[in-house]
């Protein structure tokens, strides 16, 4: 079957989609966006977290056909999404020139942003905070955590530690680097409230 939906603010079309296929599979294998990770395939680990119409969900548990006509934001589009939001624009990018093309999203890399000089690729504040706080170890859980943490900071700009733990309770880090992850989210929240 064919599925038309919006990915990172741009309309996309997936063809020959198997009816039992997950959104995660479509993103990774058909759109060439491997940022969302495939680990447990049962909603336990959160590494495939994306936003579906703004809401964080496990993309492995969404049937591809269910996203017909809906908006998905993946980690590859997170920087642009956060930028649009900060500029007070349409965060999904669906209403203007915003958003991230598939090509840009496929080439997107989380490197080059020097925390000392601030040079290089523009990162979402939460991404920069993860780098600065040393919250990335093997990196496998990072995309899901970024999407979940970014959504929490959008909803709740001044989270308590309990709020952060709850918001990230569906994301597992098997390097067990949770303390640094907490540091990163606190850092992003602090920078956000200072308007840095």
């Amino acid at each position, binding site marked *: *079957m064919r599925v038309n939906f919006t990915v990172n603010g741009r309309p996309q079309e997936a063809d020959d989609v198997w009816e039992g296929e997950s959104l995660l599979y479509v993103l990774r294998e058909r759109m060439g966006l491997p940022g969302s990770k495939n680990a447990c395939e049962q909603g336990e680990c959160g590494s495939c977290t994306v936003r579906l119409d703004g*809401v964080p969900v496990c993309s492995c*548990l969404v049937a591809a056909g269910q996203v017909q006509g809906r908006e998905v934001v993946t980690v590859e589009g997170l920087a642009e999404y956060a930028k649009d939001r900060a500029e007070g624009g349409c965060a999904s990018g669906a209403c203007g020139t915003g958003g991230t093309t598939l090509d840009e999203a496929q080439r997107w890399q989380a490197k080059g942003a020097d925390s000392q000089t601030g040079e290089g690729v523009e990162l979402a504040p939460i991404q920069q905070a993860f780098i600065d706080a040393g919250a990335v170890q093997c990196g496998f859980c990072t995309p899901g955590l970024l999407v979940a943490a970014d959504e929490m900071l959008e909803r709740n700009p001044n989270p308590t530690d309990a709020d952060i733990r709850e918001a990230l*309770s*569906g994301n597992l880090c098997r390097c067990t680097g949770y303390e640094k992850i907490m540091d990163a989210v606190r850092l992003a929240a602090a920078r956000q409230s200072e308007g840095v």
Partner: protein
Amino acid sequence: MDFLRPASWEEALAAKAEHPTAVPIAGGTDVMVEINFDHRRPEYLLNLNRVGDLYEWEVGEDSVRLGASVPYTKIMENLRAELPGLALASHTVASPQIRNRGGVGGNLGTASPAGDAHPALLAAGAEVEAESVRGTRRIPIDAFYTGVKRNALAPDELIRAVHIKKADGPQQYSKVGTRNAMVIAVCAFGLALHPETRSVRTGIGSAAPTPVRAQAAEEFLNAALEEGGFWDNGKIITPSVAKQFAELCSAACNPIDDVRGTASYRRHAVGVMARRTLTWTWESYRGARNASEGAA
């Protein structure tokens, strides 16, 4: 496999009548796991995401009509006052990502004895609104669970909503697991005080082939509260009454040994949760009672 995408409730019912083996999918948090792991290859998937009615709820005079697909997150955010037991239960479901997708309709459709919503529904009192092209009926929650992962739905029926009695007194929910998130209940317990009818209702999860009420325990407690004039005098519940209530709740279990826990642990834990939730709800009832008397 075929992917059916009805745009309305009527279309969904027609599709289910035409293909009774079609598997409804809304949040997908159970169905997609089975498909991802190749445990299930349904001939038809019936996507309910486009049926807007299923995502709405109405607060009525005596009950809440909760659309089958209202996500747990919305229940926690919007219905804590009306449905405190279910809101607490919703908060114990998996993780934020899962609570954003899953709803009570899926819990009922799957009818797993471990479904988190069931003890809260049993304790509050509820009816399942099931519909097919043949018509609508309301199935009392006590008659809904018919076996392990079996329910009273006919093959052509879909769950449209659940009618849950609004709380007329304190409610509590307790669940045993290894951590606070992403846990399938080892066992769970729901308790609701109903001061209007001077009765108590319970719900037990994961400790019998189906979710069950501890009816003997309820009858014992109702009689003990009545006899001692507890509803009127607002006294602390006698420890011996709480103890016997807990024992009767344990006795209502018919658990198995499995990877999550042994049968004897489950029986024990249900007793502990019964005693604790009784204490919590009763203290809250007394507090509210004393506050209103103080004001008067």
